[in-house]
């Protein structure tokens, strides 16, 4: 059975948490999260290319990522590593380029049990408005676009009949 993703949104605090378990040891999951050659292989929605422009993985080091859509649109993010505890914890700032004042703080925790690893991400935004803005401008847009693409496909199938 596939491991399921949990998403927990707090109605009163500007946080969002995700949890997901993987059938792999923590060391390997840590590698996958912290090396750009691994990260670009899996991170981001299916349709977007994940480009690592900069990834200076050390406390105080900066990173810059871009998600590139097939139509050429780009969604850029950047931030700084604040805490690195190998192989259990990474704290980094997260800034969506169009919203430079909304500095979110992401904490990734890796927990290992019985050879399985649970990834826990906790994102703390500066306000609930900013958290929701991230949804609206980042994740939501991708979700919407993919939804529209499916609608378009469905419509063209209907039209061919």
């Amino acid at each position, binding site marked *: 059975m596939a491991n399921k993703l949990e998403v927990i949104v707090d109605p*009163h605090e500007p946080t969002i948490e995700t949890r997901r378990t993987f059938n792999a040891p923590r060391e390997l999951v840590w590698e996958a999260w912290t090396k750009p050659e691994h990260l670009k*292989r899996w991170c981001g929605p299916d349709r977007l290319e994940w480009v690592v422009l900069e990834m200076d993985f050390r406390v105080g080091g900066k990173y810059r990522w871009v998600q590139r859509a097939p139509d050429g649109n780009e969604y850029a993010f950047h931030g700084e590593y604040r805490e690195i505890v190998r192989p259990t914890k990474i704290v980094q700032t997260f800034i969506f380029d169009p919203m430079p004042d909304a500095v979110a703080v992401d904490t990734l925790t890796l927990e290992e049990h019985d050879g399985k690893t649970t990834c826990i991400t906790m994102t703390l935004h500066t306000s609930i408005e900013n958290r929701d803005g991230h949804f609206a401008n*980042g994740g*939501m847009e991708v979700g919407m676009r993919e939804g529209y693409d499916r609608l378009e496909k469905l419509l063209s199938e209907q039209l061919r009949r």
Partner: protein
Amino acid sequence: MGAAAALSEEELDAAFAALADGTRRAIVARLAVGEASVLELAQPFEMSQPAISKHLKVLERAGLITRSRDAQRRPCRLEPQRLQQVAEWLGGYRKFWEESYDRLDEYLKELQAKPRQEKNRGKQARSHRRSP
């Protein structure tokens, strides 16, 4: 994505605040199986009718339930579309992580299979990998 319109900030605030209470979630769960009067809803909670009515008002303002105006018992009804809209709002973020993590899952399998293949090389030809 369905036909449901996107919610405004205020509507989202109201929906999440309304669902952040155990009693109100229980009411929503109860109404998911069919409409009920305030009296019927109050029964399992050991709560006064006015207390339940307060919860119902919160749910009603959040657009999660409606109450019939005409009938004397004014039954409460779930508005599943609002729950659907809340779920859709979450969908984009969820999709990001679901798709990423599904790929990570596959990738980790690949990474774990590699050293084993190298070890077995020479001993035997590539064996078929069992799918989960």
